């Protein structure tokens, strides 16, 4: 009988091609996802006279620089246009499939993987974007890499990595009404910090995680990197199999049965040992909103902006002072008193159909506040189509939201969608760093329902109170 193993160890061990003497593993990539953002990797291959080793395990999509406005028009910005044109050239030359900006399946790379059935339990999946961990919600080991590693993967279908340590974050109990997957992951990051997961792969477990839908689980694993982790994973279960079945690239027929039989062996063994364990009580989580300039600077919506004088050490106190100065906030201010100018509902964290449903439920029959400009950016063309089939686009438009084409948009703000200096944005995205949504712009991270609530009241709002108003 072999030693008990974690989910991560099972997937990792099944993909180790080679180990160097000092412990770097050469890991095989079952799936490699690309965007329009790594022309340097293709250029490296070109200069070295190399080919893509496994084009059929590789797929690209355009998401970062694409406009979210009318796609039938040329791209205004010459630099973005150049990136898009280069991607067409590179993917054709190297024989890699590309879901380009005219393809209905186009969208944010981390939305597309699960949606198309490219992401499966037990696979290793790599992508040159830090939110690759999203895919771990299905039980994959999904890790972000840099451009040089993308080039390495293209050439060899492998990448050398030091084996990460394992951490289990257990969230047991029942989430209170108004709390979502976004609140769970923000609360986790608030607890362990932005570097709390550095060097680790986090497995999210516990009854509150199992209760989440697959899309909710993706919101959780998505932000693993915001806690510094290499990857985030959730054990596959019946919900996972149900989600995957019938997707365009999922196995079918006899292959499906064989795959499911294997997937059932993947969850961590009962006696498996993790290098670190953290646990949270779901019933104590309130809707979360960030107040600072990194995702650990978060508070419950019914809380107050904290005082740097209460910080544990000098480094942290100075960071908090800098954050509050940048954010234009005073210690002791009630989170609910913070007025906002912009609302962004979208990003690989919160742009799937359930996210849009949650936001639309709040927006329905209400109006975006006069002071606020709000936009909704679906995660993919297929999410957009489904939302329109359900009439969500009409709800948003009637309420005064803009309804856009899919892409990363104002999460990274490099496609022409950005906030103005000094503006304050309630955003369902994943990073509140200085300048993230536009130079000198201020970001408050929160859930889709909370973002919609902020849009209609013009200030950060406790979704639980808004519902009582109805």
């Amino acid at each position, binding site marked *: 009988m072999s030693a008990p193993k974690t989910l991560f160890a099972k997937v990792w061990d099944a993909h180790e*091609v080679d180990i*160097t*003497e*000092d412990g*770097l593993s*050469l890991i*095989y990539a079952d799936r490699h996802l690309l965007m329009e*953002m790594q*022309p*340097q990797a293709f250029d490296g291959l070109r200069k*070295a006279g190399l080919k893509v080793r496994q084009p*059929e*395990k590789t*797929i690209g999509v355009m998401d*970062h620089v694409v406009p979210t406005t009318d796609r039938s028009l040329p791209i205004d910005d010459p630099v973005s246009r*150049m990136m898009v044109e*280069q991607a067409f050239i590179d993917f054709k030359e190297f024989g890699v*499939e590309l879901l380009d900006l005219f393809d209905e399946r186009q969208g944010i790379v981390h939305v597309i993987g699960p949606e198309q*059935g490219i992401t*499966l339990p*037990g696979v290793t999946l790599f992508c*040159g*974007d*830090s939110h*690759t961990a999203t895919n771990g919600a299905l039980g994959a080991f999904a890790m*972000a*890499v*840099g*451009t*040089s*590693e993308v*080039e*390495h993967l293209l*050439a*060899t*279908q*492998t990448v*050398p990595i*030091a084996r990460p340590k394992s951490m289990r974050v257990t969230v047991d109990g029942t989430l209170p009404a108004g709390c979502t997957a976004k609140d769970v992951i923000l609360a986790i990051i608030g607890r362990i910090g*932005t*570097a709390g997961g*550095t060097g680790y792969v986090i497995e999210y477990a516990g009854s509150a995680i199992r209760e989440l839908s697959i899309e909710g689980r993706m919101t959780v694993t998505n932000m693993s*990197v915001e806690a*510094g982790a290499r990857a985030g994973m959730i054990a596959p279960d019946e919900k996972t199999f149900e989600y995957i079945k019938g997707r365009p*690239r999922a*196995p079918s027929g006899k*292959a499906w049965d*064989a795959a499911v039989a*294997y997937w059932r062996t993947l969850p961590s063994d009962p006696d498996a040992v993790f290098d670190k364990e953290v646990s949270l009580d779901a019933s104590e989580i309130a809707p979360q909103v960030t107040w600072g300039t*990194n995702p650990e600077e978060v508070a419950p919506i019914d809380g107050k902006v904290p005082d740097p004088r209460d910080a544990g050490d000098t480094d942290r106190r100075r*960071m908090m002072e*800098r954050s509050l100065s940048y954010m234009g906030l005073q210690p002791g201010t009630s989170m609910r008193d913070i007025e906002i100018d912009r609302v962004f509902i979208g990003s690989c964290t919160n742009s799937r159909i359930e996210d849009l449903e949650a936001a639309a439920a709040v927006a329905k029959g209400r109006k975006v506040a006069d002071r606020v400009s709000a936009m909704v950016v679906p995660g993919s063309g297929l999410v957009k189509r489904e939302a329109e089939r359900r009439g969500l686009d009409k709800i948003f438009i009637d309420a005064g939201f803009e309804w856009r084409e899919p892409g990363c948009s104002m999460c990274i*703000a*490099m496609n022409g969608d950005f906030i103005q200096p000094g503006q304050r944005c309630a955003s369902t995205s994943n*990073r509140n*760093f*200085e300048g*993230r949504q536009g*130079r*000198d712009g201020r970001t408050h991270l929160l859930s889709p329902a909370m973002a919609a609530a902020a849009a209609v009241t013009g200030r950060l709002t406790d979704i639980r109170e808004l519902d009582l108003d109805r």
Partner: protein
Amino acid sequence: MEQFRKLTGVAAPMDMINIDTDKIIPKLHLRTIKRTGLGKFLFEEMRYETDGSEKPDFILNKEPYRNAKIIIGGDNFGCGSSREHAPWALLDFGVRCVISTSFADIFYNNCFKNGILPIRVSKDELDALMADASDSENPELTIDLEEMLIRRPNGAAISFDLEEFRRACLLDGLDDIGITMTKNASIDTFEEKQKRDQPWLYTAAAE
């Protein structure tokens, strides 16, 4: 990739924790098809006013730090995105070494791919090096990768650790794609076995 053996140069103190990749290189400069030319945008929003003029208080706008080859940064340096543009911008500016108490994993890896040496030290050692670098009269450090030592202006030395594979790649400027391709037979064998064990991975991915 350029070799890294011994480096002597000005060390710039950046006494701030969580210096994220958006601070190192703002996203608009990710829209490039080259790896070079990003040095002028390094730390752009901390370094320049919106009209493009220099912020005089920013460390890299002061002498002798305009020629910094080493950065001493606070904990969790390089947190955030996977953008390799962060080490590209550092390299293009002339920085070949970053010293901190901890680095975000992806940034740490990306440095080695570009001939930049990230060194982890203890908090006490970081405080000492931060003080060394803050002396604008004599902020030079020597990084000796062969001896695995940081030599301070006062003659003292701090030793550091690094995996042998990463050290060898930096010392010799080795391209790790070349190294992996010598293992092609092992990769072939892996694929053959996986194809037998998990055939669905080979029939489902392509359309």
